[in-house]
């Protein structure tokens, strides 16, 4: 025997509110959508018809009632009878909100179903544009309904009345409803107003919809437009943007703006505010812009993108992918056009979003060129762009960490050598990418280069301090540090610690080889790094009075202490911390130096 399924309304509504929609608040959107669809359907037949939606909370014996009145196409008795069967088959709700009557009826039902998230009784009173007597449909959360004719002279259109569920009465507050209606419907192309109590003035209608989106309105001039968009962004998105970028893709019926965030955020996929046919789809819709666009928040209205079943996100279909690419191209175009000029927005943008720009430069050659031309880098010759340095010096010499830069900056500056600090995130990738571009020569600074640029010491010719130098080399050999003497500016830097990346790799290799000599049949022995120098070099500055004092010290214990103190201060100058052993050494050195000073004092 064939039977019919029984649909449990309460259960179905629960599934909707918990699993389909982000929350019960969407009932306001669904009611608004029904009203504007009905108005669109009527205007297709009668372009001069009134287009208003009025929402208010009225008191009744059973508590507050939410009333939504529209001047739409209205329902005949047959349409209303279809409402229930519609609930069963309304999944075919078309994303393209057609203006035909059939689509309107098909969509009406699901809107009512969403309303049951907050209501336990819904009354619909309606009169159709096509004539016939007014009808009344009363549906209840238990799944029963009554359909009756309605006496009296009702205007064409529909009035929906919601009686709250016991646990949902907080949705029936006029301020709450006005806030939600404004959030969802502020860009709707019809006159939507909500009645709100105003202190000392009773209840007033507040119009919540604008004639056109703020980016599509006509303004006296560009600065008025800029100001209007900025203030709209502040009110709607909660921040004052640095500026905006117009987005316009007629092919997919999309328009809107991307607001530039006033502050940098960690890289990540951003979410954006999306309207479909001027109704808010969601304030946090994913996938509209490429992941690298984390420096803007976009607000767009579209007619061609497909919402998901909840109508709160977009389907990740091919149209969305193509849209995302096209919008990405638009943003890159803006960056290249705007940032090349001395525009106030360009300066603010570079200051705030250089991280985003660097990220982009690692993926796109046009933006790579842009970054090399406009982004100031820290160099030993002040803040300069990469292109500036390459044009002047013919090549780009850089350090790949900020620590390495700090180590050499003062000396390189004194030697007139321009070194770029490429220690910030993405910088090494940018320099690597530049190296592969025609016309660019980039080179990481090696420690060799620094001390070859330093002037040979007087003592080297005279051989004066040869013995002292030999002693110093022996003392620091166990730390894999070589010692050299050079003359360089500034004389306030007594010693400089240079690192040799190759030497450091060799040290790692030696350590591994010593720890596991038989691993892989001695495979590690086959990797022989060049072993020309130690991994670090301490370059003593012959110009420094401290160094000259040290080199003249005869007392071996004091010499050792002085050398260690210079070595450890060079370590700290290089930005490295001291380990436990270093601190012990430093303490010991200081006590030797102090004891020696005390002994030298006249008794």
């Amino acid at each position, binding site marked *: 025997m064939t039977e019919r399924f029984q649909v449990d309304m309460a259960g179905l509504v629960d599934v909707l509110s918990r699993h389909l929609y982000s929350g019960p608040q969407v009932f306001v959107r669904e009611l608004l959508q029904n009203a504007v669809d009905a108005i669109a359907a009527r205007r297709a037949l009668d372009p001069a018809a009134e287009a208003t939606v009025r929402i208010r909370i009225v008191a009744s014996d059973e508590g507050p009632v939410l009333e939504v009145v529209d001047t739409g196409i209205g329902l005949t008795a047959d349409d209303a009878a279809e409402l229930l069967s519609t609930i069963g088959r309304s999944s075919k709700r078309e994303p393209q909100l057609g203006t035909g009557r059939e689509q309107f009826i098909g969509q009406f039902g699901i809107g009512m179903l969403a309303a049951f998230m907050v209501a336990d009784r819904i009354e619909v009173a309606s009169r159709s544009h096509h004539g016939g007597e007014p009808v009344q449909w009363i549906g209840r959360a238990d799944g029963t309904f009554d359909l009756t004719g309605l006496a009296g002279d009702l205007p064409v259109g529909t009035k929906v009345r919601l009686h709250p569920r016991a646990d949902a009465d907080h949705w029936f507050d006029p301020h709450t409803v006005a806030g939600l209606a404004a959030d969802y419907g502020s860009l709707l192309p019809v006159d939507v107003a909500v009645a709100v109590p105003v202190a000392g003035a009773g209840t007033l209608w507040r119009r919540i919809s604008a004639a056109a989106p703020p980016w599509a309105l006509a303004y006296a001039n560009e600065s008025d437009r800029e100001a209007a968009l900025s203030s709209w962004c502040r009110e709607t998105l909660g921040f004052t943007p640095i500026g905006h970028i117009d987005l316009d893709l007629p092919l997919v019926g999309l328009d809107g703006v991307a607001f530039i965030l006033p502050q940098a955020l960690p890289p990540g996929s951003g979410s954006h505010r999306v309207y479909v046919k001027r109704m808010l789809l969601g304030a946090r819709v994913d996938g509209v812009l490429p992941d690298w666009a984390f420096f803007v*928040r976009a607000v767009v209205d579209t007619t061609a993108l497909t919402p998901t079943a909840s109508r709160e996100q977009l389907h990740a279909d091919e149209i969305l992918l193509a849209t995302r690419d096209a919008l990405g191209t638009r943003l890159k175009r803006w960056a290249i056009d705007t940032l090349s000029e001395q525009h106030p927005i360009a300066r603010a943008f570079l200051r705030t979003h250089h991280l985003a720009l660097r990220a982009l430069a690692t993926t796109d050659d046009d933006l790579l060129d842009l970054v090399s031309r406009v982004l100031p880098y820290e160099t030993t010759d002040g803040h300069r762009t990469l292109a500036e340095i390459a044009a002047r010096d013919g090549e780009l010499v850089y350090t790949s960490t900020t620590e390495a830069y700090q180590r050499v900056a003062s000396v390189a500056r004194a030697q007139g050598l321009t070194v770029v600090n490429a220690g910030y995130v993405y910088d090494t990738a940018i320099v690597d990418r530049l190296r592969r571009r025609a016309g660019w020569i980039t080179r990481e600074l090696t420690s060799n280069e620094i001390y070859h640029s330093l002037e040979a010491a007087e003592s080297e010719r005279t051989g004066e301090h040869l013995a002292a130098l030999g002693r110093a080399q022996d003392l620091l050999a166990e730390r894999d540090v070589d010692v050299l003497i050079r003359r360089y500016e500034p004389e306030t830097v007594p010693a400089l610690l240079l690192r040799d990346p190759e030497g450091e790799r060799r040290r790692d290799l030696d350590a591994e080889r010593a720890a596991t000599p038989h691993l892989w049949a001695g495979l590690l022995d086959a990797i022989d790094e060049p072993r020309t120098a130690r991994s670090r070099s301490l370059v003593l500055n012959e110009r420094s009075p401290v160094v000259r004092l040290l080199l003249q010290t005869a007392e071996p214990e004091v010499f050792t202490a002085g050398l260690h103190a210079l070595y450890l201060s060079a370590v700290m100058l290089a930005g490295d911390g001291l380990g436990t052993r270093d601190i012990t050494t430093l303490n010991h050195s200081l006590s030797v130096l102090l004891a020696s000073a005390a002994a030298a004092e006249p008794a």
Partner: protein
Amino acid sequence: MPLTPADAEHALAEIRRMPYGTARTAAAETLTREIEATGPASTLPEALLDLVEAYTFSSEGLRAFVTFARLLRLHDEHPESFTEGDTRNLYWEYKWVAADLPVFPEITVAQAQAFLDDMHRRFALAGLGTRSVSMSAFRWAWQAGLPHADRALEEWLATPRDEYEDCAACTVGHQVDFFTSTGRPEEALHRGLGQHGTCNLEPTRTLHALALATSTPATRPAH
């Protein structure tokens, strides 16, 4: 020598295994200071976030304000040092710190409001849902005894749900607590009977509040 990133991760995980209390707080403080001084910088956000947690759950919320302020400054100056997980955790812990606003009498109304305004600004800037913000604003208004607590409750409940708010069971529990503590047992009952969820606090908090509510003469069942 400075910690390697792996060492730092390991040390943080060790501390997370400790029970909340002075020992965990002391360990978290020491490790955070070391990471702050010698790196690795990439682990600093995580260390600071863990320190906020240690303070918050051992009744040292006032100290958490200092650490959280440091975190926000770090986030503004070096957003690139925050991983996706750090960022999520930052916005997750925000409501914990906000919950301590009414606990300390040395925090003025104006200061608390400035904190909540800044919280709202940051959530909006990051494009996140603001339900945890409106919940925090309500809890502050209620526990500080401010006249707009009822309006703040409406605003909280009207804000769309998101991933940074407390669970559904706690949402009911807070309201029941609010109505009970402000002498409105009928409203407490009305909300509390809708409590169907469970978590590490619920339904105990709701049942406790309901027991209080129903023991007042006005609502005691007449039989």
